[in-house]
């Protein structure tokens, strides 16, 4: 890759500072656009730094856990997360994550890169989707038996209760979300929101925060395997963890004062280019 930074001639201190800076930007953009840190860390490490895909997956997992737990601590107070829903669907994602982490062992890196590119394309498509908040959804019997109905506080101080439907559909998409998370090291937040939002008709605010809760747990399920395989390299993990967390925290602060709609559109185009680059490099066998 001709555009790579030549890391092999670099000192450890310079490499660490460049990575710290890159991770800060990844955390900042991930938080402003709602994509999470992991999605940006993989192209940053593989395409810009020329680091091996395995190490990039390990670093992305660390970034996913850090951003998930970091923002969850703020979400808990707001009372938007549906813990029962998250926990029930987490069975699907953690089993999926086990399968994905096992598949990563035999799957060629170039195929993983192409799948990652495809997930990025889906992410871009979701950024331009119309967000509809479902009101008056008639819940299904199974959802009721599983006590998945919930309520959340609205801005004007009232409590909005909601029902949801199509539990088995949402559950199936979650297995796929978990498998992709285990395979790629990302949180698969896009698929998680898709499963809750499009399949189960969960209100948007609830699906976003519940997905964030799940991302951390799913990422840990595959991280316990990847740590033991040596994918989590200390020299890479430390600048990524510190940088992404600091970036995500600044992002959360900025988000309150900033209109991010334009930024999200610009960023979607950038992600689209990265996705095509990933797929192209995967097809010609660069990884």
């Amino acid at each position, binding site marked *: 890759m001709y555009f790579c930074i030549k890391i092999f001639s670099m000192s450890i201190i310079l490499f660490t500072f460049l990575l710290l800076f890159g991770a800060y930007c990844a955390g900042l953009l991930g938080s402003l656009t709602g994509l999470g840190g992991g999605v940006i860390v993989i192209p940053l490490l593989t395409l810009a730094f020329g680091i091996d895909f395995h190490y990039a997956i390990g670093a992305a997992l660390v970034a996913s856990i850090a951003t998930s*737990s*970091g923002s969850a601590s703020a979400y808990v107070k707001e009372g938007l997360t549906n813990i*029962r829903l998250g926990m029930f669907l987490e069975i699907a994602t953690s089993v999926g994550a086990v399968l994905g982490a096992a598949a990563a062992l035999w799957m060629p890196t170039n195929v993983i890169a192409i799948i990652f590119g495809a997930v990025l394309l889906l992410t871009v498509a979701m950024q331009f989707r119309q967000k509809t908040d479902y009101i008056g959804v008639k819940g299904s019997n199974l959802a009721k038996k599983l006590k998945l109905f919930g309520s959340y506080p609205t801005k004007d101080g009232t409590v909005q209760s909601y029902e949801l439907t199509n539990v088995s559909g949402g559950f199936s998409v979650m297995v796929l979300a978990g498998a992709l998370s285990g395979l790629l090291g990302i949180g698969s937040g896009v698929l998680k929101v898709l499963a809750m939002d499009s399949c189960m008709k969960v209100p948007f605010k609830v699906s976003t925060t519940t997905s964030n809760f799940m991302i951390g747990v799913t990422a840990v399920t595959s991280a316990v395997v990847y740590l033991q395989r040596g994918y989590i390299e200390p020299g890479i993990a430390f600048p990524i963890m510190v940088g992404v967390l600091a970036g995500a925290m600044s992002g959360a602060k900025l988000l309150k004062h900033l209109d991010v709609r334009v930024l999200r559109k610009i960023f979607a185009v950038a992600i689209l280019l990265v996705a095509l680059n990933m797929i192209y490099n995967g097809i010609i066998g660069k990884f």
Partner: protein
Amino acid sequence: MGSNLSSKNNMNTLIGNTLRIGVFAACIIALLGGIWYIASSAGSSLPDYTTFHQGDASYTTVEGIFKSVFALSATGWIQLGVIVLMLTPVMRVVLSLVDFGIQRDWLYVIITGIVLLVIIVNSLVGVG
């Protein structure tokens, strides 16, 4: 109802604090290890990250990591930070399990138990 609500708030505060402290502790530990790692790296060249190498036991097994931590190795401390970070969401699941138990919601005690079991079994046998 009143006591129910306040116990819910207590649990949410506990979960929020656990997440905050976990992430903060992980970050501090990794940062300390990282500063040390940079300080002791003077003169040595960057490891080859362009190709994947099988990891060394000193930072890929829990036993190895704890040995490195006690031997005051910089990479051992960074990995300890990673482990603390990984334990943070797990702690949240454990706290939810306790919370469901307090509410006598046995269905969700079982569901949360399954999630914990998958994580634990996977960390024991999923090495590949």
